């Protein structure tokens, strides 16, 4: 068999608890025959054992004992599907508010969000929260499964009312596109095959919509090339190359680059990836870069082409706080940005986001799962882009100095809707 050249699409499910995210993913995998016979048999056996009918599709992804006992999703399950031209990485995310950190984990690398909501309930608070986080994380494309259509007798009126409500929110949050689809995940209507119950609907099924959208928008960027130096490789016979994963614009041999924060200009003389030497490399590739001039570049430095990023020790950022203790004024933490780790102090909480109204209100602390706009001060220089311009050089995490737990996701700058 010829090795097919496939692209890679990463998606995350988004929505409130019990609206049917896991069931939809289960249905999608079963109906596209991505599950092996023994895996399907195991789901059937587990369904019978727990007395939830012949086949509880949510058990395809809810693999932990506690998840099956409680009938909820606690953490992200990653599942994989493949068509002749595309590999899908599916992050099935939990809907409960206390597992928002896990939802953010799944959505942070997603090209698109697959929103699942119950047609009878409309947009719940947790759906708003998830969409808000997805928008903050830079997801631009939504595919919306308006689920449980069978429970409202396939009513177009009910469908349109939910779509209306969601369109308004998606517009406020600045998503670039939204494809709503009426479905019944339970019955498999409009998931893979077009439904026969919905003569008023002539759009795509969920699978058709997934196949039609653009892969790799995770790397959407408006910056020049960015290569955070991860590791310095000493070459045989002397000389060094600088290894890291490229983001932003493509990088070419012969191109002028600036080493930051030292602000030294030099020229790229070689680009090598796992598959050999190249004249040019694109975002998402791990490459070693050879430079024309001797530099003292090391881990934590950045190679960049114009337009250059910003050098800063004090900046405004949007954070999702996951810590169990509240984040307060002048708190000290560790910050990891690209390959750089530095002490950081919270200077000020500039505002706390009200999920209901999307307004930013005054506040003096962020509690678990709050989204806030803050100003931070770091000990070392950081070389950053606005998150909306580059997800790699625009993102950071905050780390508890004692437990080493990751307590916040941070994005440089402020989203347009805040």
């Amino acid at each position: 068999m010829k090795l097919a050249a496939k692209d890679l699409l990463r998606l995350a499910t988004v929505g409130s608890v019990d609206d049917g995210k896991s069931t939809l993913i289960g249905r999608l995998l079963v109906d596209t025959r991505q599950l092996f016979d023994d895996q399907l048999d195991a789901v059937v056996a587990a369904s019978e054992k727990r007395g939830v009918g012949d086949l509880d599709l949510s058990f395809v992804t809810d693999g932990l004992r506690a998840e099956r006992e409680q009938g909820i999703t606690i953490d992200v399950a990653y599942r994989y599907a493949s068509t002749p031209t595309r590999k899908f990485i599916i992050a099935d995310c939990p809907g409960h508010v206390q597992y928002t950190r896990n939802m953010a984990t799944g959505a942070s690398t997603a090209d698109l969000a697959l929103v699942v909501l119950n047609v009878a309930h409309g947009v719940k608070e947790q759906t708003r929260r998830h969409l808000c986080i997805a928008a903050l994380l830079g997801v631009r494309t939504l595919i919306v499964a308006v689920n449980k259509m069978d429970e409202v007798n396939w009513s177009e009126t009910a469908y349109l009312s939910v779509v209306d409500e969601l369109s308004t929110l998606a517009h406020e949050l600045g998503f670039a596109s939204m494809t709503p689809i009426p479905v019944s995940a339970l019955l498999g209507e409009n998931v893979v095959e077009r439904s026969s119950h919905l003569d008023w609907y002539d759009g795509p099924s969920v699978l058709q919509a997934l196949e039609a959208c653009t892969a790799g928008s995770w790397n959407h960027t408006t910056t020049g090339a960015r290569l955070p130096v991860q590791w310095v490789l000493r070459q045989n016979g002397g000389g060094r190359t600088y290894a890291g994963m490229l983001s932003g614009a493509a990088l070419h041999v012969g191109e002028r680059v600036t080493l930051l924060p030292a602000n030294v200009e030099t020229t790229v003389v070689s680009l090598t990836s796992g598959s050999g030497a190249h004249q040019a490399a694109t975002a998402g590739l791990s490459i070693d870069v050879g430079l024309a001039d001797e530099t003292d570049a090391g881990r934590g430095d950045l190679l960049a082409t114009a337009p250059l990023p910003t050098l800063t020790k004090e900046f405004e950022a949007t954070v999702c706080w996951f810590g169990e203790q509240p984040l307060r004024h002048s708190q000290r933490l560790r910050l990891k940005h690209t390959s750089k780790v530095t002490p950081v102090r919270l200077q000020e909480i500039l505002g706390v986001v009200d999920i209901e109204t999307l307004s930013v209100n005054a506040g003096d602390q962020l509690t678990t799962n709050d989204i806030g706009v803050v100003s931070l001060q770091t000990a070392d220089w950081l070389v950053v882009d606005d998150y909306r311009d580059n997800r790699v050089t625009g993102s950071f995490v905050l780390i508890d100095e004692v437990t080493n737990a990751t307590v916040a996701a941070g994005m440089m700058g402020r989203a347009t809707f805040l």
Partner: protein
Amino acid sequence: MSTSLLQAPHMTNHLDLLESHAIFILREVVAECERPVLLFSGGKDSAVLLHLAAKAFAPQALPFPVMHIDTGQNFPEVIEFRDSAVARASARLIIASVQDSIDQGKVADPGPLGPRNRLQTVTLLDAITAHGFDAAFGGARRDEDKARAKERILSFRDAFGQWDPRQQRPELWQLYQGKVNPGEHLRAFPLSDWTELDIWQYIEREHMELPRIYFAHERDVVLRDGMYLAVGPFVAPRPGEVVERLTVRFRTVGDANLTGAVLSHATTLSAIVDEISLANVSERGATRGDDKFSETAMEDRKREGYF
């Protein structure tokens, strides 16, 4: 210079992106952790992992040793491959032996033919402590099992080596952070997002060597619990079992007494890729006795500190 700028950028496909991501993870863990180690079983996944590790740090030597948790119930072809692969990578090999754990009375002796799969956890955790490792690379993939599908790429283990699936660290973007306190460690899984088919397509693309038992060959087997087990030092036919000589290959490599062979005529990598593309049964379902004990066998073992 002028001509190079006119050339189209190198086109990437899913294997390039998976390779790049794995190399990124390998470098990041080595940079953040003090004493990493790569767990190597001689199976296809750990072979790919070692291959990627060599690429990540070339032309320098691997900045960490390779460790085999040796149950003593191996296929000889796998041990042969282990030694040649480690030599090719110029890596330092540590062998942690389950037999030693048995001899020291740390685990009960299951007898010469008894299963040793679960005993490995004790040997593994002891070796991690004894060598002071703070990170262990493994070749586990999320498509293998529903508990693995839930695990982070950098997965935290407490001072008892335990995994707590309810308290995993958030893992945002590709900001893998690997700091742990003394006594704790990380498991790092650079192949998390690879499927079995990706692994085989990559092995084919890279012209990698593998243990011969992955390719179809004739072998004496007995059918036990729906699996063909290879008759040999660790599997003796039981009363009523018929020894058959069949053309088989192994889809996974584990202990000789727990790993089933599949009927196959695939003698080349491209034939294996074809076979995997059309398979109806998962690799662990087809071949692994160790996962059949209960619905959450893997989760339970992982909580205790298993691979």
